[in-house]
């Protein structure tokens, strides 16, 4: 009759392994330390007092390409104008799709007329896993107090077609604007869609 206890204990151990950090909207966003394309280190806590956007990206992913036809750049410009810190995070492991050098990242930013505050690297996937980032693109909004306010998809239509952007509800843009207005985003959690993050 001991076997049941054994099974219970074993699964309790499994469960505790599964207790990896899950980000929670309304709770402090996990802090992180990353290096950007220019070799500068950033910590989330460095941006205390500012709203922060995290954008998981992979330039070769068709879903990312869809939004870099202009939509993403427009959002970045809009946020920059409002003094929002925009970090484009690359969690692709070395050798995987989307993994780039600092120089290449800067080239991509220039060639796409992108306007992130910085492009940061997370080769080990530590930050991605702490935020449970699943797809590219995958968007997060953190308020001035460091509280996670939004996590999920960029908009409501999961497709790789540029034409769908205009038809979709812009979940991320709406959430970011709400946070800028000091409001709570609704919805605050949506389905992320896109390519898998290449951990």
């Amino acid at each position: 009759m001991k076997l049941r206890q054994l099974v219970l204990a074993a699964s309790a151990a499994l469960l505790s392994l599964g207790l990896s950090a899950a980000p929670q909207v309304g709770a402090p966003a996990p802090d992180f330390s990353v290096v950007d394309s220019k070799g500068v280190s950033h910590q989330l806590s460095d941006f205390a007092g500012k709203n922060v956007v995290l954008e998981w990206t992979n330039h070769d992913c068709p879903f990312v390409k869809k939004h870099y036809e202009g939509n993403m750049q427009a959002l970045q410009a809009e946020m920059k104008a409002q003094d929002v810190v925009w970090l484009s995070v690359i969690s692709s492991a070395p050798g995987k799709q989307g993994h780039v050098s600092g120089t290449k990242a800067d080239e991509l930013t220039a060639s796409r007329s992108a306007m992130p505050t910085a492009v940061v690297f997370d080769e080990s996937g530590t930050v991605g896993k702490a935020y449970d980032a699943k797809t590219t693109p995958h968007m997060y909004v953190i308020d001035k107090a460091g509280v996670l306010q939004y996590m999920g998809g960029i908009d409501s239509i999961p497709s790789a077609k540029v034409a769908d952007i205009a038809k979709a509800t812009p979940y991320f843009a709406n959430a970011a604007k709400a946070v800028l207005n000091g409001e709570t985003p609704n919805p605050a959690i949506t389905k992320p869609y896109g390519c898998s993050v290449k951990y």
Partner: protein
Amino acid sequence: MRSVIFLLLCCNLLIPAHSASSGWQTAKHLQAELVSDYRQVTAGQQLQLALHFVPDPHWHTYWQNPGDSGLATSLSWQLPEGVTVGEIQWPTPQAIPIPPLMNYGFAGATVLLSDLSIAPDYAAGSINIQLQADWLVCEEVCIPAEAQFSLTLPVGDKAIAASEYAALFQQARQQLPQPLYASGRFDTSGGAFSATIELPQPLEINAFFVAAPELVDHAGAQQISLQGNQLLLQQPLNTYFSGVASQIELVLVTAKAAYTVQLQQAGPAAEILVTQGQQSDTALWLVLLMAAGGGLILNLMPCVFPVLSLKALSIAANSSKQAQQRRDALVYSAGVVLSFVALALLLILLRAAGEAVGWGFQLQNPYLVALLVYLLFALGLSLSGVVQFGLGLMNTGGGLTAAKGGKGSFFTGVLAVVVASPCTAPFMGSALGYAVSQSAPVALLVFAALGLGMALPFLLLAFVPGFAGLLPKPGAWMDTLKQWLAYPLYLSAVWLLWVYGRQAGVDAQALLLIGVVCIAAACWLWGRRQLAQAGTVSVALALLLLLLALALPYLAPSPQPRQALGPSHDNAQLSQAWSAAKLQQLRQQGKPVLVNMTADWCITCLVNERVALNTESSKAALALYDVTYLKGDWTLRDAAITEYLRLYQRDGVPLYVLYWPGQPPQVLPQILTPDTLQQTLQQLSRQP
């Protein structure tokens, strides 16, 4: 002749134009064609269309719920008026892990079937079907693509099947999960997706796929447990879970087949809880072996050991008469096994009658506890030499006839089970309760195995000559030992007296003690009669005293409504009384809660509390993490607690459940160590 040639020409021209296939479209890493199972159709007909995907090796497309990333294939049809098409009939998906993420999809060739219906009044001579399909095909990198398919089917007087595609369609239909007409509910409370499904037949489910997106953590561990025909499923909730429809589809996968079932969302009052690690696939033989082992251990319990050691010695003393010894052992075993089976039957019948009883029920009724006190005390008196009971306990076999010896052995078996029953509840309660919650034949088998285990030493003594030789030679010391062995029985009686006092109060306990004195007197009178020192009056008096003793617990004042925490609990300030409503309220407030289900007769519970819960370190841990400690008392029957225990597939105490906000309820082991609580809380709190 000319007309024949014309016809042949027509046919030659028509076949390419009116084929049952759209022809192959080639996209990056994938080829696709649209196929009909009829080359000619007729008005009012229903047929099937198949979108046949053949990706490159190692490339895959996605299921309706693609998992953590990816995109389900979507179809957009353009059809003439009077023709309608149904939803995609998705084949059984595969789990495609890309650690730490998980996708659901189809590696290799896939056929997506859709039903096409033609109205009975459809008049045109052909049907042109236009399909735009959007898909994502991935290896590790992904390529989205779309393609247009066009298929024109002639409408004639009769339908003509496209025999060249019969095999493709047949294979595709075999890939579909079969509808399972089962009722099922699901729930999303406690940080997990939980489901309970009444299966029409037992199925060995290896995996399940939830069709609703962003509901389960796709890479999270799946808990699958079968309790009889009730299937219980659990998987952690998705980080991006933000609501779900009231009905969802679920695909269940066995080694050979797959089934689809619709689940309804359980109401807020009907929370489904599935505990971790309730594995149903423990092989039956292993369960039976463990039951037999448990039975063997029962022989060492303080209430059983004295009775049975004497039986063993009597066998040793009787070693010269092997045939009778063997028959005795067999009859004794039959007594034990049948008594256990009878107890199990009683419990199953009570439950079938809708009684909320679990194993341990024999100790939840104060009157039964009183009777057990009398029985253990009387047996003790018998060992002390006050009275002799003719149950063959010390039967050397010499003076008794074979028939009497057999009967004696059988009832020794019954007696052994009766005196063992209070001991099974505290030590084996939940294990036996688990057995009872299985199907009736399994439950009876488990109890039979338990009985066999208990009888095993005697079977060995009788049938393996070497064992009997291990016993010491009989002699005068046996009488001394017998008298010593009375004391564990007295102590067992004291324990049950205490349980009785906790249940019924100190007044009732005093009455029971008077009853015990009556039993003592009755036994003494009976013993004198046996020594021919007393007459008929004494016998009558003894019987009267016995009746009085039996009546006294009836006369006892009815038990006071128990306070959940009596003075004997030294943590009165620490815990509050459990109630389902209070637990729900606390959990809704997002507070961590520890639930302890206990009973006074549960030795394991008392030891756990003493060693692991009422300690300074555990108290400090509870205070540190602001855990509300709720304690449920199952000493007396309590339907609400029984129901709660069943949520966790338990049928007995102890049960310790720790609720941490945003996490599935965690069941602590039945044997707690001093660190268990603190460590578990530490683990649970280690999240942002």
